[in-house]
């Protein structure tokens, strides 16, 4: 085991697969000579050559559509968006072709799209978004959102191995801030299985990505109040581990769903609606949602703080639930 940052764990996962399986290649803007905007693929072009680490033109449709074609020919493309925000330029290819080709024509499309996402560093409206909810609604796509270095590596390997299009959301705010033990060997983390980040008995928090740490800090404060909070890190949003969520909801009877994306129509709505429908008799309080407000992500630090759910917001929500 080595202690790696979240970012190093992503690099490690990608390198592991590229060494193991020569069908795997990386394509994206500035991923080669530059090593990627965040240096995830630093040194990769030297190791794997220019045809397995491809500096693409500034053309997201060509990158994602091209990855689709290469996947159909038997390769295992990993496409990098420079920022998750730019995936909007390849929306059509993901929802129209990659998502539907298996069901429609029996053609699997095993691509991975890496999406540096999330805010917290004044990236502004177009370098901070968390678009996973939009994709989770499209049948045929998978969405994974690791929060720990260990899961970052294991889920990337699972994503590459998966025979479906997988959107891999890597949270930029965790890149260098979060460190953890990461096994050196190859391993996979299952897609569709939640992780209990911390056990508790009074309230469940269902969340993923950077919000796991916000929930953790808030839970510490609740602990001081004598309220025991369970944190479920969904890890993968599509498929999502409904069984684990319902189990936790039934145990605690009170649930807070927390995400960094905006509230209305966010994936938290699906989770809350499912719990409210399937654990109706077990709930002692309405399922509460905390998410970003319905507006773009602001640039100014004071505004961004008001936008991204903060520890205090979560503490407030948990206290409300505790008091219900």
């Amino acid at each position, binding site marked *: 085991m080595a202690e790696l940052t979240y970012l190093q764990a992503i690099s490690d996962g990608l390198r592991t697969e590229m060494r193991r399986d020569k069908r795997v290649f990386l394509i994206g803007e500035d991923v080669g000579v530059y090593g990627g905007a965040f240096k995830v693929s630093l040194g990769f072009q030297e190791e794997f050559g220019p045809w397995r680490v491809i500096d693409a033109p500034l053309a997201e449709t060509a990158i994602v559509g091209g990855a689709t074609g290469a996947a159909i020919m038997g390769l295992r493309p990993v496409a990098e968006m420079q920022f998750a925000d730019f995936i909007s330029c390849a929306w059509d290819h993901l929802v*129209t072709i990659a998502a539907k080709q298996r*069901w429609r*024509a*029996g053609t699997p499309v095993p691509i991975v799209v890496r999406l540096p996402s999330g805010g917290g560093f004044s990236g502004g409206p177009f370098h901070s978004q968390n678009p996973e909810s939009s994709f989770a609604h499209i049948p045929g796509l998978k969405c994974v959102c690791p929060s720990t270095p260990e899961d970052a590596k294991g889920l990337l390997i699972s994503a590459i191995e998966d025979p479906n299009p997988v959107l891999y959301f890597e949270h930029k705010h965790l890149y260098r801030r979060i460190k953890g033990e990461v096994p050196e060997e190859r391993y996979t983390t299952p897609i569709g299985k939640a992780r209990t980040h911390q056990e508790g008995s009074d309230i469940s928090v269902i969340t993923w990505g950077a919000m796991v740490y916000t929930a953790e800090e808030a839970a510490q404060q609740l602990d001081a109040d004598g309220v025991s909070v369970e944190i479920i890190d969904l890890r993968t949003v599509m498929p999502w581990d409904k069984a684990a969520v319902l189990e936790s909801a039934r145990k605690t009877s009170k649930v807070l769903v927390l995400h960094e994306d905006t509230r209305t129509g966010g994936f938290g709505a699906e989770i809350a609606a499912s719990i409210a429908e399937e654990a109706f008799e077990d709930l002692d309080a309405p399922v509460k949602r905390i998410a970003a407000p319905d507006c773009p992500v602001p640039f100014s630090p004071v505004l961004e703080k008001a936008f991204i759910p903060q520890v205090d917001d979560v503490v407030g929500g948990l206290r409300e639930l505790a008091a219900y």
Partner: protein
Amino acid sequence: MAVREAEPVGSLNEVREAGLDRDDLLGVYRNMLITRGVEERGHILYRQGKIPGSFYTGRGNEGAAVGVATAMRTEDVGTPLHRDMGVHITRGVEPWRIFAQYMGRQDGPTHGRDGNVHMADQQLGLIAMVSHLPAMLPVAVGCALAFRIREEARVAVGWFGEGASARGDAHESMTLAGTRRLPMVFVCDNNQFAYSTPTQYEYATEHVADRAQAYGFEGVVVDGTDVLAVYREAKRAIEKARAGGGPTLIECLTLRMEGHAVHDDAFYVPKQMFEKWAESDPIESFRTWLRDNAEMTDEEEDDIAASVKKLLITSMERADESPQPDPATLTHGVYATPEDLDTPHHK
């Protein structure tokens, strides 16, 4: 701008040099007849109420589609569109499966999940089109990229209409293929209309092929009703790509001889245009050429016509026996399983 305008095809000898012997030529003729026959029968089925939804054909484009497909090797791949039934036929898709597809039956390539020519047999090196045009071009370029990465001597062929040439997907595809000199051939089915829209609202050059230069490769315009000229140009482009010479854009000029789809009477196409292009019907032209240059006999001609007719009739019957898909399976296969990847392509 300078693009090459391809010469019409001349003698049998010339064609032989390009790689087709007399038997091949009769095969090409047969494929063109099957192509048209499938679509004509489709019309009948549609009128009989057996085809749900809408119905599209490629009448007038049989030569272009069969010509290009004939120039492809088995190991090459392609993404044909809604005017390119001839590609499916030439690659060996059995007509009964196409009829089953039209009718939404279980034995169509998409098992009733999609309709029309939204289908393909991947074992035959074809990828099923989506409606969104020309979204299959980036996919085709991705195939070419895979061949380049693996250093395989294979070529990808991507089709697009002159209307769809206006979309960004065409541009990004040609940019990626051109900058990386990928083994890719772009085929523009220029049938002069995009639904009701004439070409001057889709592009501002004389030819779509004029654009090839803007991507650093060669463009050529060919009479799309001349199957052998199309074949020759496609062969040349495909082999050039295979040899590492980069992409080519081949523009096949035709007229869409029917409405955009079955409901459209094409009132917006001037009558004289139809009349003029009716004179160069690709099948009739090729038939005449075969008689004049390859001594196709009455008997041969009749044999082919009869065998095609029989094929179509039995195919329709067989298709009609195909069951409706089972609604209980509706949501199966939204996600692939690891076993799905266990195909020759994925080794």
